């Protein structure tokens, strides 16, 4: 027990402090996609963080066991809902891997193109939200306008902005629209302008730099140990991008670079994402130039719906259509783990088939799950004010973690 006024004591000796437990979330403006962080604070410094996820758990994997192969597609839209097209393609690739289906060349290029469009929308959302949380509202709006132009393109192609369900086993729902490239080229100057505006507002911004540089640091060894991938891993200096290391679809046939950071802090992650958007635009341009003509779907009516002229006019097309929809294609027995470069990292689909009309087991390896298990390493010892940009730079998407 301290006695006030004792010799040699300062005011600090009489201040009773204890650690405070602060509950952040799940309903919190900074907690995107409902996450609860139970922080043990000493003043503003974070001593311990207990992360609770699962608020968006919808039983995705259980539901998939009840559906046919193509009926699973709308569920994949709702995984990383900022880049649904990438999820679609990843799932379709996993099933095609089990069945040994070889998709058409045109399909490969279109899938690459739309994946990159999705990646751009995701990165813009992340950068914009990051700025927003640090009280920079204008770059957020500029980013959203750029994203809106891309969403209009996606809506023209697939009919929806988020619930796209564009891929099918063995191909796609349909080919690109006739005006797709023209509309893209029309919008491109404005998109470039907006991205340039965002960059000029943020990249060399003193406040932004002070908040972001040196915060949320993680080392490369820790990042790999926790299973990080994507922009977060690349910000630590590790060159791992599924598109380059294990090229899939048309990524082996296009020129692009993979930006890699060095410090592993929030600022590097921001820079990595900005540069990735530029590279994605480069890839899209090459896709438009090099895309071959030809059919988008494979010819096998056991897997892919026949063309409508056949369905309405021949009994064979009618029966094939009926059976694929009502019963589902019979994918042979087997299992496969297929992975793509999602906006947050390695998005994997582990699908087990028992030879039936739908998956026997379906597991999604969402990159954000591994990022969230390692986030405490990035925020421990920092302040709450640093938690906000760190959490944003992870780009945690609830749909991917919780499923």
């Amino acid at each position, binding site marked *: 027990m301290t006695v006030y006024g004792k010799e040699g004591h300062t005011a600090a000796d009489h201040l009773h402090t204890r650690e405070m437990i602060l509950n952040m979330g799940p309903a919190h403006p900074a907690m995107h996609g409902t996450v609860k962080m139970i922080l043990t604070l000493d003043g503003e410094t974070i001593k311990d963080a207990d992360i609770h996820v699962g608020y968006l758990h919808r039983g995705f994997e259980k539901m998939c066991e009840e559906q046919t192969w193509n009926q699973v597609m709308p569920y994949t839209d709702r995984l990383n809902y900022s880049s649904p097209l990438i999820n679609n393609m990843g799932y379709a690739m996993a099933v095609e891997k089990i069945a040994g289906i070889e998709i058409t060349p045109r399909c490969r290029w279109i899938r690459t193109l739309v994946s990159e469009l999705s990646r751009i929308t995701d990165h813009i959302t992340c950068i914009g939200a990051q700025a927003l949380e640090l009280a920079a509202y204008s770059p957020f709006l500029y980013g959203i306008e750029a994203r809106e132009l891309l969403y209009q393109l996606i809506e023209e192609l697939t009919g929806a902005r988020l619930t796209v369900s564009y891929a099918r086993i063995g191909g796609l729902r349909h080919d690109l629209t006739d005006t797709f490239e023209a509309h893209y080229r029309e919008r491109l100057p404005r998109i470039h302008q907006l991205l340039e505006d965002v960059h000029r507002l943020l990249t060399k911004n003193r406040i932004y730099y002070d908040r972001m540089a040196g915060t949320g640091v993680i080392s490369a060894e820790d990042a790999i140990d926790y299973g990080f991938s994507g922009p977060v891993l690349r910000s630590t200096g590790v060159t791992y991008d599924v598109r380059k290391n294990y090229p899939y679809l048309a990524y082996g046939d296009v020129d692009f670079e993979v930006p890699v950071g060095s410090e592993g802090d929030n600022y590097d992650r921001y820079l990595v994402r900005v540069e990735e958007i530029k590279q994605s635009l480069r890839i899209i341009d090459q896709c438009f130039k090099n895309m071959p003509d030809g059919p988008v779907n494979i010819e*096998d*009516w*056991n897997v892919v719906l*026949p063309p409508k002229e*056949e369905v*309405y*006019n*021949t*009994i*064979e*097309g*009618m*029966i*094939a259509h*009926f*059976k*694929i929809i*009502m*019963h589902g294609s*019979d994918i042979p027995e087997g299992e496969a783990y297929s992975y793509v470069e999602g906006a947050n990292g390695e998005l994997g689909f582990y699908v087990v088939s028992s030879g039936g009309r739908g998956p026997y087991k379906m597991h999604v390896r969402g990159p954000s799950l591994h990022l969230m298990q390692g986030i405490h390493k990035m925020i421990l010892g920092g302040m709450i004010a640093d938690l906000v940009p760190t959490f944003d730079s992870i780009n945690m998407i609830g749909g991917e973690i919780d499923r």
Partner: protein
Amino acid sequence: MPTLKINDQEVTVDQGTSVLDAAAETGVEIPTFCYHPGLSAPANCRMCLVEIDGGRGAQLMPACYTQAGEGMVVKTDSPTTQEAQKSVLEFILLNHPVDCPICDQAGECVLQDHYFDYSARPSRLRHVKVHKPKVKILGPNIVLDAERCILCTRCVRFCDEITETHELRVTQRGENSEITTFPGLDLTNKYSLCTADICPVGALTSRGFRFKARVWNNKRTKSVCDQCSRNCSTFVDTLRNDVKRVSPRTNAEVNKWWACDEGRMAFKKYEEGRFLRGQVRHEGTTHELAPSDSYHRVGSQLSQTVEAHGGESVGLLLHPSWSNEDLFVASQFALEAGLRLYVGGRTADGYEDNILIRADKNANRYGLNLILDAIDIPNAGVDSLAADIQAGTIRTLLILDGEHTLPESVITAIGQVEEVVALAAWHTPILDVAHLIAPTRLVFERGGSFVNFEGHLQRFHKTQMHDINILSPWHALSTIARAGGWDVQYDRISDVFASMAEMVPRFAGLDYQELPGDGVSTEETTSAGTI
């Protein structure tokens, strides 16, 4: 006992087994259209062609007709076989109309399934398809769409071999061949709906089921027909709680693959006239009660009569179409309260044939007899009932179920009873004289077990639900008994069955939840033969 090789797997089968059955023993499925295990094998569809090497080189031969021979090498997945299957399907589909969206068979169509599993090749037809009559009424229950027919002749063989009524024939030739009825005949045999069951496509369809429901939306439940003492196993298809269709379930011990039209269509007669609430009739007016109130009322009324005049003054008219569980609880109740038991029921002397239909139109007389013997309770027929009523001994009569076929004299006698109480699901003219009616469940709305005339016990399951306050007969009787102050306490049907299995020697050792899907025989084989 020839040994043959099917897809590199050796199997030994009995002499006379077809290659198709031999393959089935090894787990290999060979597609067929015209083959049916209950009919002769005509080998006219050619879908079961497989490569068979019987010593003179590999040849395509129909598996349903070719007998397994020693040393045969059969390949069901070789390129030749696959090409044959694709070609056969192509020919069959050549003139097949694009009817799937409007065809009743969609979802359970063998042609759809085989095309998708064995072919999936686009059409090469560049011509018009042959047109034939599309909605040809063949009889009261069956309509023919001749374009969909693939001429497997299953229906023709059914009418020739099973019902032996010979109504159907193939007429014309080549691509104009058509199934039709023999001139002057309609498809009127008592099993005509079986032709719609066995038709692999949507050529022959049921008129009663036409356009009523899509099969994949239906919920399918295993049940048993209760319209005669054969107790054919059935599947009941319901959609949104309405029974849409009853079709036969294969049961080698009871009905094989068939079911009669009358039994299958019986569900239609129960659609009108259901009792959904209790009825109290007094001087021309009818007043309704909630079901639970009506059970209590019946119970208290019976107990009043028994207290005043003894159990002998109350008669209980059993129906031998009720389930074992219902009849067991009824008998326990009668024993407990000292009531008089009479056995009524539908006619025992109806139409009978040597295929499935039995003269006794009651489902469970065998079970009733087992139960009454085991409980050792005196019972009598309806003539005794009339006599006892005339003698003045019966003051209250509890009629169980309304579907009794009674002689005029008995009906008149019942009209003279002081108090007629009924526990019934469906209105019949006999119940006009009832003063108090408590509702119960139809056979479709409850579960239980029947024993058929050969001693085969089968379980039937609930297919549709109505008001949960309306109880199954065994449960209603238990509630009535308790309301009257008697100790008959059953809340779970498996408890009823367990008690019954203890008391009835033929049911000993049976467990309600473990009864096999095809039922089990209750007949004991002693050295003196079957009982």
